[in-house]
């Protein structure tokens, strides 16, 4: 049951949640849903610009009471976002993993116990950005195009590319979308990387509360014209 029965809202979501959202479209009475590109958290300034543009456009097009941002702090990309036309709502999370696990607390607990975990979900599998044979092959191709006459350099770059993942030892796969193939893919990725594979329990409640406007203290509601700011380590975000 929504906490905001008379109010309208739109969703701007990361691609990572596409499958999960599509499967639950009937639960939500959002006026619209726009997606933004997965993986942009590594270039937070670029992501911030994209998101601000999407917020302004969504407010102009749909005039909702609220825009729900289905993402987290994402490398500080959401800091500074605001709307002069409606209120923003954003879960108080660092990134999508907390959403998949059901809370930030579960995420921190898991990270504490398994610092060498590399997280995956169906959305991440679809992105082709996870360390895998596919990613290594496409990276090699890109280097070969950039350094066409220098195989030694390509080998060296590939060795450096692999070095980025040397500290990880386990793929932690989580899902609450219906994608048996994604799990199989992730198992293949783990084998290629010579890591272990573990499926961890997910909890869709947090996600479902987000898209059905059950916005309690786990969510930050940002008044009009106020920017999203970094909060304390418990609150994560504030306005």
């Amino acid at each position, binding site marked *: 049951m929504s906490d905001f029965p008379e109010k309208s809202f739109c969703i701007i979501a990361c691609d990572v949640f596409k499958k999960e959202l599509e499967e639950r479209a009937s639960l939500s009475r959002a006026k619209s849903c726009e997606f933004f590109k997965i993986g942009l958290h590594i270039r937070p300034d670029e992501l911030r610009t994209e998101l601000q543009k999407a917020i302004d456009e969504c407010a102009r097009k749909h005039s909702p009471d609220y825009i729900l941002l289905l993402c987290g702090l994402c490398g500080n990309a959401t800091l500074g976002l605001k709307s002069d036309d409606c209120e923003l709502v954003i879960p108080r999370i*660092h990134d999508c993993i907390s959403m998949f696990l059901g809370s930030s607390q579960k995420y921190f607990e898991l990270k504490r116990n398994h610092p060498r975990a590399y997280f995956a979900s169906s959305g991440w599998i679809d992105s082709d950005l996870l360390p895998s044979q596919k990613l290594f092959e496409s990276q090699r191709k890109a280097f070969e195009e950039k350094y066409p006459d220098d195989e030694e350099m390509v080998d060296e770059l590939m060795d450096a590319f692999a070095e980025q993942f040397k500290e990880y030892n386990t793929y932690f796969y989580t899902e609450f979308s219906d994608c048996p193939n994604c799990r199989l893919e992730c198992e293949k990725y783990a084998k290629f990387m010579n890591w272990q594979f573990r499926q961890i329990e997910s909890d869709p409640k947090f996600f479902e509360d987000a898209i059905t406007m059950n916005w309690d203290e786990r969510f930050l509601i940002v008044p009009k014209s106020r920017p999203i700011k970094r909060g304390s380590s418990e609150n994560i975000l504030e306005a």
Partner: protein
Amino acid sequence: MESELEKLTNAIIAGKRKDAAAATKNLVESEKADKILGALIAGMDNIGRRFKANEIFVPEVLVAARAMKASMEILEPVLVAAGIAPEHCVVIGTVEGDLHDIGKNLVAMMLKGANFKVVDLGVNVSAEAFADAAMENKADIVCLSSLLTTTMDYMRVVINEFKNRNMATKIMVGGAPVTQEYADEIGASGYSADATSAVELAKKLVA
């Protein structure tokens, strides 16, 4: 005609380990050590700036760092033999919970190039390990790195560990989500946004 110093800088920029080593071998015969270090720093500075501008990517930074390392391995014994021993010691590491080390490695390499003794504790380093290493090595500065918003708060834990032990070691912080404002909030001695300014800051802190 490219000078040998330019050759060295360009080998670093191109990430050519063997060329960097060859140029360094030639240079140690004829050139002053500070000039050679300057050529290395110029190469890595170029890499750092282009990485920040998204012109090059992580693997290209890593191969440049490897080229600089190959050069430093030749240069270090020469510096020692010439009595140019590092005057100051830096302990560096990525904080607990965080496995990212590219930025940290770059800063470590640049500090070595600026003739600091660098004790690299690696990744996922606890507050106790930072404080123990700082004491053991009589470090002048401790550098904390973090790439994640989930781990940057651990920097505060490290700073508190030093306070609890009454250690006055200077603490520098850096990493993608870290800002000057955050550094001030947690009581760090300084913040730098990239490897080049980290070296400037370290020099200032020991001056």
